[in-house]
């Protein structure tokens, strides 16, 4: 049973295309996140949703639009893909309310824009 699962794992697409990455968690958590890991392996938060409400929105281009249909899902849609969007995108989840709660990560989605 995978706790946080995201699809697709690998995605190669052309510049200008629109693509989506889906994420689902079966841990019963109420908070979900998207993180980006760039080519230098640097990890940075992009978004966080708590009970389907957007809580954290870092300085991410508005070509990136997260959507949370319910607490267990947080999808990431990217419009007009650019070369610089090539990265690994990690979905994650946690239970809200306590700062030290463990954040569980998905396996990552490797996006390559050509």
């Amino acid at each position: 049973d995978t706790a946080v699962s995201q699809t697709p794992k690998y995605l190669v697409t052309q510049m200008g295309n629109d693509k989506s990455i889906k994420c689902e968690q079966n841990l019963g958590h109420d908070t979900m996140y998207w993180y980006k890991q760039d080519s230098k392996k640097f990890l940075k938060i992009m978004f966080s949703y708590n009970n389907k409400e957007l809580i954290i929105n870092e300085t991410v281009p508005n070509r990136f639009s997260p959507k949370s249909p319910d607490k267990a899902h947080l999808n990431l849609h990217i419009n007009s893909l650019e070369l610089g969007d090539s990265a690994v995108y990690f979905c994650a989840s946690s239970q809200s309310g306590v700062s030290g709660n463990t954040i569980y990560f998905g396996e990552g989605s490797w996006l390559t824009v050509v």
Partner: protein
Amino acid sequence: AQRVTQPEKLLSVFKGAPVELKCNYSYSGSPELFWYVQYSRQRLQLLLRHISRESIKGFTADLNKGETSFHLKKPFAQEEDSAMYYCALTYLIQGAQKLVFGQGTRLTINP
């Protein structure tokens, strides 16, 4: 501003040697600090957190508030310890945790 610094991008040691991965942080409140590990092309996994003061896979980390450090240590490195290690601090924003990661240290254990 909240910041985590891992000064070493790369660290290479021989099997059986001690390992120390450095982490310093900047945070105005009481930090919650973690170490995450990422094995080759796998998901990030929590290695340990400072509040539980546990030892996982032989690794320990002590929070030193005076030096604002949370260095990760292991007395005898093993080849399977080769991975990317991230130090992180977290704080709450309206119930959601914001994890701030350091730049990561790639640890290589040589046979």
